[in-house]
């Protein structure tokens, strides 16, 4: 055999060896990719399976929470009045007055009284029960009309003979706004002057 033929055979063998080496290596790499994709698919399938009921459950939770918000907003507005309700919520959550109540669009335009600066939190309902509520606990003009630490005892003392069956509606207390008997100076933030 001529030398040129031997060299050609050697060259072809080298080319085939390179083909085999690289193609086999590529096959192994592709098998790893396939295994990784199988794992990824199983994980994604788990995500899909586990998240399937989430939408319905969250929708139900939101629906119930919406009903609760509607209930509490309506009750607050009904019992405290729109202005005081907005003021109370704004006192508990500063800045909430701008957002207003969801079911009462007109609440966004109400100028909220500064209830949070005058009352301790949670005393608005007590204030509506009578003048003896501890509404003036932070009043700069004097002490509270009754001791807020023993509010329930004082409340029971209001009716020593038992609560009347049909009490007359009590006048709203305290009076808030420009027509109130006691005026406080204008607030620095431009809010209306609170008064008790």
């Amino acid at each position: 055999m001529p030398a040129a033929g031997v060299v050609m055979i050697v060259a072809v063998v080298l080319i085939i060896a390179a083909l085999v080496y690289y193609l086999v290596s590529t096959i192994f790499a592709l098998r790893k990719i396939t295994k990784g994709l199988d794992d990824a698919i199983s994980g994604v399938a788990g995500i899909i399976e586990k998240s399937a009921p989430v939408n319905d459950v969250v929708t139900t939770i939101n629906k119930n929470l919406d009903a609760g918000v509607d209930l509490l907003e309506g009750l607050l507005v009904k019992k405290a009045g729109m202005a005081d309700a907005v003021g109370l919520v704004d006192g508990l959550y500063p800045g909430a007055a701008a957002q207003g109540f969801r079911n009462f669009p007109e609440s966004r335009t109400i100028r909220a009284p500064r209830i949070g600066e005058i009352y301790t939190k949670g005393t608005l309902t007590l204030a509506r029960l009578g003048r003896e509520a501890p509404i003036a606990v932070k009043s700069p003009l004097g002490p509270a009309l009754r001791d807020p630490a023993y509010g329930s005892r004082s409340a029971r003392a209001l009716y020593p003979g038992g609560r009347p069956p049909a009490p007359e509606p009590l006048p709203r207390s305290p009076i808030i706004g420009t027509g109130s008997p006691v005026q406080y100076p204008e607030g620095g933030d431009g809010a209306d002057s609170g008064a008790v």
Partner: protein
Amino acid sequence: MALEWIGDGALLLVVLPVVIYLLRGVLNAAKSIVPSVQQVASTAQAGSRDLDSAALLATTQEQVIKTIESAANYGGSLDVILDDARLEE
């Protein structure tokens, strides 16, 4: 005879390097995909594990319903106890 040597030279100096270059490129591309796919797989499985607590949403749902029912009962009582706000206010 000379043409055979020229063909041998072309095989060894041109064809073989080109084949090796192309195959190495394919192999490197395939190998570079492997870690990415493994990361995707581990991330997907971690995400699936994170969603194991999604089943607790059913408990949350029940608790929300009970809470809203309690709030509704409490609100109903307050509606009876407290006077309504006056309209002129």
